[in-house]
């Protein structure tokens, strides 16, 4: 039999009578309170005991107070630990023992506790602003609804939209739980003031637990962002990525500018931002040329959490025609790839409003999918990409 049992705290954080009766009931079932971990409470298995539990609001620092423990012990109470850094937990086998014997003093303690929690609410407001501010780019007012309709996978995997909505939902649940907790605390104070016997309300704790659960991935995401774990580039050499030289031939002259001729693979991702890779290479170009006038290769790859998302993303990409490309042809599965789509592009010239002629090189776009990973390659040049399919499959398999 396990010695430790974990339970979700079903009552609100400030629901003193609710928490007291819940802890006493569990003690009667042989679960002695030990500690809390967010919305969870840990219990030690012990002999079932009929006890009354008293929660003493912590008035100063949340460290254990030896003097207070001595006072309680002298009165026959046993110290069980702290609950959520808000209360000291005491239990007594004497069901008639009273920890508070002066209603005015109890009212003072509760009033003070209420003020503390009200101030704590300001911290929660600050957390609201901080998290929502961090992900505001993903807010619904910044969302392009047409993009969302036609390219939902791309739009929702931008690393900010889902975190924003998780933030909003999690904070909403936590705020509501906190606010209702304050209302319950105020009601408890009033009931004590009138000499009544207040009752606890269960259910509010689940609200806080759900809020914490929803916010947990957002917090992990934030930690990854602030710790710099969201970007992990690595060298091109030995990466397995297909290069422009490999397509055009070894003597092909690449741009000397590192911006156009990456010697590394840009790579990153967090819990809420799918792992992605980016790489591009351009041929050398003259001062009077634009980079788009010379052969170049751009590769993007994303690993989605689910295969269905990768399938949908491949479908989204296959609907895009770019710079005169034809429609995609399904080349069927290949060795090492579940799906291969190819859209050739023919060379074409376009005259802009100023009368300047722009020539788009031929080439094509290739979409490869293996499991939950999608690779998209956009190539401008004379080569036929399906001839180099092995190199792109190798790239996909190197991810």
């Amino acid at each position, binding site marked *: 039999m396990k010695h430790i049992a974990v339970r979700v705290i079903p009552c609100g954080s400030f629901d003193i009578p609710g928490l007291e009766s819940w802890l006493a009931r569990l003690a009667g079932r042989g679960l002695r309170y030990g500690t809390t971990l967010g919305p969870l409470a840990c219990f030690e298995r012990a002999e079932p005991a009929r006890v009354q539990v*008293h929660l003493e609001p912590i008035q100063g620092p949340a460290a254990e107070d030896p003097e207070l423990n*001595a006072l*309680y012990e002298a009165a026959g109470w046993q110290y069980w630990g702290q609950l959520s850094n808000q209360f000291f937990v*005491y239990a007594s086998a004497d069901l008639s023992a*009273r*920890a508070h*014997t002066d209603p005015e003093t109890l009212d*003072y303690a509760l009033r003070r506790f209420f003020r503390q929690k009200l101030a704590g609410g300001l911290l929660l407001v600050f957390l609201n602003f901080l998290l929502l501010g961090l992900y505001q780019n993903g807010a619904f007012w910044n969302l392009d609804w047409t993009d969302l309709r036609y390219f939902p996978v791309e739009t929702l995997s931008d690393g900010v939209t889902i975190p924003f909505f998780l933030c909003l939902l999690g904070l909403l649940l936590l705020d509501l739980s906190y606010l209702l907790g304050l209302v319950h605390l105020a009601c408890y104070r009033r009931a004590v003031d009138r000499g009544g016997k207040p009752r606890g309300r269960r259910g509010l704790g689940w609200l806080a637990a759900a809020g914490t659960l929803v916010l947990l991935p957002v917090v992990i995401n934030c930690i990854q962002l602030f710790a710099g774990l969201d970007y992990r580039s690595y060298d091109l050499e030995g990466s397995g990525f297909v290069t422009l030289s490999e397509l055009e031939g070894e003597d092909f002259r690449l741009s000397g500018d590192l911006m156009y001729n990456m010697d590394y693979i840009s790579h990153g991702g967090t819990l809420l931002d799918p792992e992605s890779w980016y790489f591009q290479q351009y041929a050398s170009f003259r001062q009077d040329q634009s980079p788009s006038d010379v052969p170049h290769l751009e590769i993007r790859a994303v690993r989605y959490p689910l295969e269905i998302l990768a399938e949908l993303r491949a479908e989204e990409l296959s609907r895009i025609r770019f710079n005169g490309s034809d429609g995609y042809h399904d080349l069927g599965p290949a060795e090492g790839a579940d799906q291969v789509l190819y859209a050739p592009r023919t060379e074409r010239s376009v005259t802009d409003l100023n009368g300047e002629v722009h020539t788009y090189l031929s080439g094509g776009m290739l979409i490869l999918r293996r499991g939950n990973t999608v690779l998209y390659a956009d190539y401008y040049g004379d080569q036929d990409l399906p001839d180099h399919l092995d190199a792109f499959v190798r790239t996909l398999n190197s991810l």
Partner: protein
Amino acid sequence: MGRDKGPLTEPMYYVLMSFLRQDMCGTEITEFVERKTRGRVNLGPGTLYTLLARFQEEKLIVETQVDGRKRTYRITPKGRAVFQEELDRLRACAADGEEESR
């Protein structure tokens, strides 16, 4: 100088009284109140803990010594004044009652 938050409750009165002759720690206060009132006033540990914090906040007592689990407190001149004020009020109450019941 005095406390401007109404009369003291019985536990408050006896806790403040306990400091008049000497510095006291929590358990000594409980014993004092028990002895002085012959068990009539029951001072719960939560009540005492809150009162000590409150009296410190209102500067009626100050902490003088911390020795392991034991913290000792001393009454301040303001604390004495508050106690005296309450004593005078209780004397006046008692006198009024005596006078009327004669």
